[in-house]
C-alpha cells in the first residue's frame, strides 16, 4: 500500500513541477518527495546552469508558497543572514528614555530603588521589537511555511555553515537575548552548491544529497519544449543533439541547460528551421563562454551537425 502511494506521489511531484515549467527527472522528484516526508533539507550540487535555483522556484510556485532567498558570498555573517538589532531604533529609545527618566524614577528615593525600577526596562531593549529579521529568521516566521533557498552555499565561509546547522536540523534558531525561535511551519529548505569547495560533513549529514548533472537528450528536449514553445520539433532535436556532442569535448566550461534554452531562444529569433554551419558558428558565443572554448569547438561544428542530424534519423 505504502509503496503504491509513494510511487504515485513521486509522479505527482513530477507533474506538479512540470506544470510550473520545470521538467524533473525521477531522482529529483524522489528527492523533493522525500524532503517533504522526512522533513530534511535538500543539498543540490551540480555544474552551473542545470537548474538548481530553478528547482526551488518551481517548488515554491507549485506549492503556492513564498520563496525566501539567501544568496551566499564570502563574508556573509549572522547579521546579514539571521537577524540584526535595530540599532537606530534602540538609540532613539534611549533618547526617549532619557527624557522620561525623571518621570519613571520619580518615586525612587535611593539609588537601589531607582535601579530596581530601571531593571524592568532593561529587557525591553532586547525584545522582538528591536529585532530585524533577515532571510533565515523570516523563513521561520512564515505562518504558512515557505521555500527557503540558500544559494551557492559553497561561496560562504566555513563558519557560516556551522551557523546553519541548527536551522537545518531542528528548524529553529537561538538568539542569545531572546531564546529559541522555532519554525511555525517547517520551511522546505534547498541549498545549492557548485562544489567550489567541499562542504563540511556536519552540513552534508543534515541534508539529502542530490546531484543534478547534465540531462539526458530526451529530458533536455522536453525542457526546451516547455521553456521555448516556439521551436519546431525537428530543430529542437537537432540542437539538443548538437549540444550533447559539444559536451563530449574537453572544454573549460561545458554548455548547460540554461545555455541550451538561451540558444533555442536565439534560434527562434533568427527564424532558423535547421542548423547550418554558418549560423551555428555565428551563435556559438551563446553556448560557450570562453574564447578558447569557441576556438576548440568551431572546427568540429560541421561534423557535429552531421552527427546530430544522423542521430535524428535513427532516434
Amino acid at each position, binding site marked *: 500500500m*505504502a*509503496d*503504491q502511494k*509513494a*510511487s504515485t506521489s*513521486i509522479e505527482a511531484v513530477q507533474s506538479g513541477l512540470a506544470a510550473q515549467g520545470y521538467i524533473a527527472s*525521477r*531522482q529529483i522528484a*524522489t*528527492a523533493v*518527495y*522525500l524532503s517533504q*516526508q*522526512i522533513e*530534511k533539507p535538500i543539498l543540490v*550540487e551540480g555544474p552551473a546552469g542545470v537548474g538548481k535555483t530553478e528547482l526551488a522556484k518551481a517548488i515554491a510556485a507549485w506549492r503556492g508558497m513564498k520563496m525566501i532567498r539567501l544568496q551566499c558570498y564570502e563574508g556573509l555573517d549572522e547579521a546579514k543572514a539571521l537577524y540584526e538589532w535595530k*540599532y*537606530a531604533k534602540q*538609540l532613539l529609545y534611549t533618547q526617549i528614555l532619557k527624557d522620561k527618566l525623571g518621570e519613571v524614577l520619580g518615586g525612587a528615593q535611593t539609588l537601589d530603588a531607582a535601579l530596581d525600577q530601571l531593571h524592568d526596562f532593561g529587557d525591553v531593549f532586547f525584545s522582538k521589537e528591536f529585532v530585524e529579521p533577515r532571510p533565515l529568521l523570516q523563513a521561520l516566521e512564515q505562518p504558512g511555511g515557505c521555500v527557503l533557498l540558500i544559494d551557492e552555499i559553497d561561496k560562504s*565561509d*566555513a*563558519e557560516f555553515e556551522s551557523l546553519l546547522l541548527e536551522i537545518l536540523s531542528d528548524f529553529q534558531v537561538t538568539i542569545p537575548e531572546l531564546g529559541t525561535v522555532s519554525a511555525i511551519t517547517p520551511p522546505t529548505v534547498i541549498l545549492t552548491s557548485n562544489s567550489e*569547495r*567541499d562542504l563540511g*560533513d556536519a552540513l*552534508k*549529514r543534515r541534508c*539529502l*544529497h*542530490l*546531484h543534478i548533472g547534465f540531462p539526458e537528450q530526451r529530458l533536455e528536449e522536453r525542457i526546451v519544449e516547455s521553456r521555448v514553445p516556439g521551436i519546431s520539433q525537428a530543430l529542437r532535436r537537432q540542437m539538443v543533439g548538437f549540444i550533447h556532442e559539444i559536451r563530449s569535448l574537453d572544454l573549460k566550461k561545458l554548455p548547460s541547460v540554461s545555455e541550451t534554452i538561451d540558444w533555442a531562444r536565439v534560434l527562434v529569433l533568427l527564424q532558423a528551421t535547421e542548423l547550418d554551419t554558418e549560423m551555428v558558428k555565428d551563435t556559438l558565443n551563446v553556448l560557450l563562454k570562453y574564447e578558447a572554448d569557441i576556438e576548440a569547438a568551431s572546427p568540429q561544428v560541421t561534423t557535429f551537425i552531421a552527427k546530430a542530424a544522423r542521430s535524428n534519423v535513427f532516434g
Partner: protein
Amino acid sequence: MRENLHRFFRAARGAGVHVSPAESIDAMRAVAQVGISDRAVLRDALLLTLAKSQDEKLALGDCFDLFFSQPEPRQDQTEANSGENAAQDPDQSPSSGSASEAGESQPPEGLGPLAQMLLSQDRNAVAAAIAGASGAASLSDIRYSTQRGIFSSRILDAMGLQRLRDDLDALTATNPALAERLRAALDALREAVRDTVSQGLALYAREEAENLRNEILRNAPLARIERRQVAEMRVLIRQIARRLRERYSKPRKRQRRGHLDVRRTLRRNAAWGGIPFLTAWKRKHRDRPKIVALCDVSGSVAQVSDFFLLLIHSLHEVVDDVRSFAFSSHMIEVSEILEKKSPEEAMAEIMSKVGFGSSDYGSSLVDFEKDFMSTLTPRTTVIVLGDARSNNLDPRADILRRISERSKRLVWLNPEGRLAWGFGDSEMPRYATFCTVVRQCATAQQLERAVSDIVATYQ
C-alpha cells in the same frame, strides 16, 4: 528487510561511503516512505540519504547493484549444476514440480537436513540456507582475501557439513547412485559458498584492502616503485593534493583579527552620531605562497621529481604562483608544459628535453642565475628537489647562497637518506649551509609533510 538494510549499510561502509548511525536512521525513514517494491526508487532514496558527494554516489550505486544482485548468480549456479547432475530435461521452469517428483521417487530416508535439501534441489531453500549460514559465520566481518578459506569452511560447518559427510559415508555403502548425486550436489554447494564469500569480500572488505594498499604505497620509496603502481601513486598524490587544498585554501580566521580601524569605524557609524555600533577592523594581509621549484630530473631522482611536480601543480587554490624548472646538466623552465599537458605527456616531454643527462648542479645553477633570478621575490619559497650528487663538478654553492638571500625560504628536499649525505659525490653538506630546511623526501608521506610544511609557513 531491516536486517538486509543493516547489511547494506555495512557493505556501503566497505565501499568507502561513510554511513553514520544518524544517516542510517534517515535512510530507514526514507525507505519506510518510499517502500521497497520499486528498486529504482529505493536506489534513489538510499543514494539521496547516504551518499554525500558525487564520488560516493557512484561507489554506493555500484555497491547497491552488487548487493541486490547477490542471490542471482548463486541460484544460477545451483540450478545449472543440479540440472546437469540430475540429468533432468533442460527446461527448468517447472523446477519445483520436477524437484518434488525427484524427491518422491527416491525418498531419502534417515538423511540429515542438508542432504535432504540438496537432494530435493530446492534452490530457494539452499540459497536461504547459505544466506542464514553466512549470517551465522558473520561473513560481513571478512576483511582480507586470505580469509576466504576460513569463512567458506565456517559457512559450510554452520550448514551442517559434518552431518552431510556422515550421510555420504553411509550412502556410499547402501546406495552408490544416490551418493554420487549427493557428492555432485555438495561440490556445487561448495562452489556456491565460495562465490558468496567472494561476493562478501567484494562488498565488505574493499575499503580495508584499499587502506592497506594505500598505507603500503604511502611509505614506499618513490624512486623504486614499480611501473604498475605508478597509476595508483598518481591517484594517491591527487588525494594528497586535495587534502592539502582543503586544509589551506580557505583564509583562516586569523586574518580578521587585528587593530581597530578608527577611520573606517567613525565613517561607518556617522549615522549614529559617531557612537561605534559597528566596528571595522584592520585586516592582516597574508601572502599566498609563491613557489619556485627546481627539480633534478636525472635518472636517480626523476620519479620523485615527477610526483613532486604533479603535487605542486595541483595546488592551484592554495598556491598563488608556481614556476617550475627542471634540470640535469642544464636548466629549463617547465611550468607551461606542466600546465598545458596531462601529467604523463608533460613528464615525457620534460624528460626528452633535459632528462637522462648526468646531473651537473653547478652549470644548472648558473643557468638559473643567468635567466631566472628575477623570478625570486622576498615572498618566494624556493624548493630544490635533488640528491645533490654533482659528479664531482663544481657545485657553485655561491649561487645557491644568492638564491637564498633573495627569497623568503630555501627548502631542499633530498630523496636520499641522511646517512648518504656527504658521501661520494654528494654536495649536500655544502648546500645545506644556505638552506632554511633540508629534509629527506623519499616517500609519498614525506612528500606530503614537506609540502604541507611549506604551505603552512604562509598561514
